[in-house]
């Protein structure tokens, strides 16, 4: 989207409040909410993908090597991935941003 949300004036909105850029929420970086971040011990990871499946923010994403890593822009640090990993491969650690 051309402009940031804060820069929008009502005159800039489309008729009928139509949003013509699907998924433009990507510009909103929810990673800023985070206090803890997931840290994966890849020696314990079986690449099962449960952390990816259960992430409410689609912030746990596959890497080229088949492992998963949390996306710093979107991970809110909820801790679900660490809680749900059957192999205890993920620990929540303080996020020093």
């Amino acid at each position, binding site marked *: *989207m051309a402009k940031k949300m804060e820069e929008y004036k009502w005159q800039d909105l489309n008729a009928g409040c139509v949003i013509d850029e*699907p998924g433009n*929420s990507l510009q909103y*970086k929810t990673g800023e909410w985070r206090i803890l971040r997931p840290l994966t011990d890849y020696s314990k990871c079986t690449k099962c993908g449960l952390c990816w499946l259960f992430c*409410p*923010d689609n912030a746990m994403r596959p890497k080229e090597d088949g492992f998963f890593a949390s996306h710093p822009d979107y991970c809110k640090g909820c801790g*679900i991935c660490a809680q749900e990993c059957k192999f205890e491969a993920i620990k929540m650690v303080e996020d020093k941003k």
Partner: protein
Amino acid sequence: MKILKTLEKYMEDPSLELVASGHRACQGCAEVLALRMAFKVLGKNTIVAMATGCMEIISTPLPITCWRLPWIHVAFENTAAVASGIESAIRILMAKGKIDKKWINVVGVAGDGGTSDIGLQALSGALERGHRLIYICLDNEAYMNTGVQRSSSTPYGASTTTSPPGKKSIGQSTWKKDMPKIAVAHNIPYVATACPSYPFDLFNKLKKAKEKDGPSYIHILSVCPTGWRIPSEMAIEYGRLAVRCGMFPLYEVEDGVYKMTFKPDTLIPVEEYIKGQGRFRHLTEKEIKEIQQRVNSEWEKLNKLCEITKP
């Protein structure tokens, strides 16, 4: 990715994310997770009508949206009416040859407040008229978006801002409205309960709903850490406990035939589900026992329905 291969059984493209990151749901919100999972199955060829509620507010603060689908925000009362209109329009456009004859999924989504209280009349009309649509109720057991007010889907004993516990109040004083059975009473092709803590069960049910040539009603228990007063990382686990203690059984009703889709060998005590949730913190042993008895009798009834309706 191994898991993508497994998911191909349920959906065309498991890597597709139709609910983009950057939405504003609370940390650990299983309601938005329910959407993420459901729309993976429904796929790109889908139109959504959604009532106000958490998922509308967190997904689409104008001029931003996390939806990658045609999506319309409707009033609280008329999700199912708008979805009916969309479905009828699609049929007419197809009949007139103005669009391809490839079916487009029409989905209505609302919270428990938007479904079991405010949108019930429109929903009943849509189910009765037999539109080919999928109605999803995201049940987080209160009006969460406006700060946790009780709905008719709030469980007995739960504390909300409008059912506060005290010397003369247990909290919510009524038993949870049985929305799925109300849907069943319309004799529609498909009704199911689901929970994102059981993803494959949820995928299966949405896949079935998608294939029905008539209305489907999917009732999804959506754990809300904020309103239930539980730690954010526990959202999936509490969904599991709700199912395993029998408070929220996973079942489906296909053409009137009831079937449990996940049947624990033995139910865990409801106490294991209740304890640890801030909204139930005030409950006494006696009150928990009362809830246990109710869960037992509902569980038995459901099992009987499965037996009786078996073809």
